[in-house]
């Protein structure tokens, strides 16, 4: 039995009164469960203004966040295929098409060249909403070409990761992208061009175990899940619950695998400061 009883039956709110609560105007925070005003959330770079939870955002938003106006998007002609004719209930080809339709991008990454507060840069951003931000041939090729271009044009390379890891539907091709990108980053490193890795929620598997961990500076957003094996797999392996905060950005900072945790709104200014020291003419003074 309920504690309170209704005084009158069939109380209803008319749709007129409800309209402000329609989908898209308000959103519940995944962390603090508070109801947030969508417009305010957008103004706040999709960070909860009550608890600082960082929502996952589309790649183009991150590019806009980091690059000065007038940037140029790149490599959009590189498109995925189904090289293995992968057998699954939902065909890989159809999955790709659905993801392309949903996100408006060809694969789980978007790249733009431009500048970060006037420092020449190339920014590659992964998009988790495209098949879990998984890395197949296209992501590998696009990041490799970005690294090559950064080297040729002396641009700082920023990669913003958001990924469940390598894409199974391209089998060993996906795996080898880890080696390919790492090799290109090796060349970039030898050319003394800075690469900064920015990890957002979540960054796991083959992405973490290749470029995400190879930054001259490794940065993460607060609270981002970062690891090699996913929490579910580890839980299965050890047969016990995982400690609180395990594999979160703060945990990785404590363990020594991150240089900095930077909230989204400060990302651009932090990158500017860091690149201001690492990038450009080799002189000891500003």
């Amino acid at each position, binding site marked *: 039995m309920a504690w309170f009883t209704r005084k009158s039956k069939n109380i209803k709110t008319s749709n007129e009164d409800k309209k402000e609560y329609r989908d898209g105007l308000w959103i519940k925070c995944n962390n603090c469960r508070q109801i947030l005003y969508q417009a305010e959330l957008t103004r706040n770079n999709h960070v909860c203004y009550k608890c600082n939870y960082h929502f996952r955002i589309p790649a183009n938003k991150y590019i806009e966040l980091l690059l000065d106006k007038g940037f140029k998007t790149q490599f959009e002609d590189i498109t995925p295929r189904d090289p293995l004719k992968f057998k699954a209930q939902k065909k890989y080809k159809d999955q790709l098409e659905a993801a392309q339709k949903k996100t408006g991008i060809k694969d789980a990454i978007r790249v733009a060249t431009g500048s970060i507060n006037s420092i020449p840069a190339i920014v590659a951003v992964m998009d988790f909403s495209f098949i879990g931000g998984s890395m197949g041939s296209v992501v590998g090729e696009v990041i490799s070409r970005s690294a090559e271009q950064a080297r040729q044009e002396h641009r700082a390379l920023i990669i913003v990761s958001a990924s469940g890891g390598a894409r*199974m539907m391209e089998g060993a091709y996906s795996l080898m992208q880890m080696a390919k990108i790492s090799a290109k980053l090796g060349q970039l490193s030898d050319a003394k061009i800075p690469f900064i890795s920015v990890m957002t929620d979540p960054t796991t598997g*083959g992405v973490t175990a290749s470029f995400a961990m190879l930054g001259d500076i490794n940065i993460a957003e607060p609270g981002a899940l970062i690891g090699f094996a996913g929490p579910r797999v580890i839980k299965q392996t050890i047969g016990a619950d995982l400690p609180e905060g395990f594999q979160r950005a703060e945990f990785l900072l404590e363990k020594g695998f991150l240089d900095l945790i930077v909230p989204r709104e400060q990302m651009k200014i932090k990158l500017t400061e860091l690149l201001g020291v690492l990038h450009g003419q080799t002189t000891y003074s500003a």
Partner: protein
Amino acid sequence: MTKTILEFEKPLIEIENEIQEMELLNTTGEKDLSSEIEKLRNKSHDMAIKINKKLSRWQRVELARHSDRPHSLDYIERIVTQWNELHGDRYFGDDHAIVAGIGHIGEFKAAIIGQQKGRSTKDNIYRNFGMASPEGFRKALRVMKMAEKFNIPVVSFVDTIGAFPGIEAEERGQAEAIARNLFEMSKLRVPILIIVIGEGASGGALGVGVGDRLLMLENTWFSVISPEGCASILYHDASKKELAAESMKVTALDLLEMGIADRIIEEPLGGAHRNYEKMAHIIKDVIIEELHKLIDKDKETLISERITKLENIGSWG
């Protein structure tokens, strides 16, 4: 040691048992069975060829992880002279899932890395089932950097179902350890030969698997994840591993066609586990042959060819 017999090996084993019995009878000298035995031998030979031709991808996976299959140290003790295993990553500890050391292979000095599985339960626990931890990858890198310093080539045996997915491995930076190896191996200034001798899954395999030549034994597999892992994630049913193996195209032949493997090393009839000596001998010859192709290249060419090969891997429109 009890021998494991896979389903498709059974007819072959039956004939072999028959041959053995006949040979025993033959020695008693009551009746000359030599011609009969010869016939059976031919039959078993033909059958082994036939079985091998018809193996499905999943059956190759089963052979690759056959419990009698030779592991890295089985080859190392047969191939490497004056082998000295070197221990520890100098930071944390010594990982038994990866062995590393130096010695001679034929006329070459070499640094050797090997992912090592166990055979008995006790041994397997000691080797952590061949699943490396960060310190294993870091030990391998330390020895490879030493090889670079003293200008000796690296030979790396790959055999793992994946890097260890545990709390401590994460705490000590499993991802960073693998990433670092990919980065460093791609520009190590000595030849690197990679030989897949059993299984090769995910970053765990790739972490000691970047080099100038990727050679795969005939009955091995190499992919982004194990067939079971793929099946449980994509099909929500780990028992659909056969389908996953087919879908991901994981065998040596597949990898050759994908332009990832450079060469398939033929195994003794029926698989490496049926003749360790012969398999080791074949591998040794191939290593020497391959090192001859790489050893005189100047460093810049070596590395630029290594990177160019990686750049071409993938399929996009």
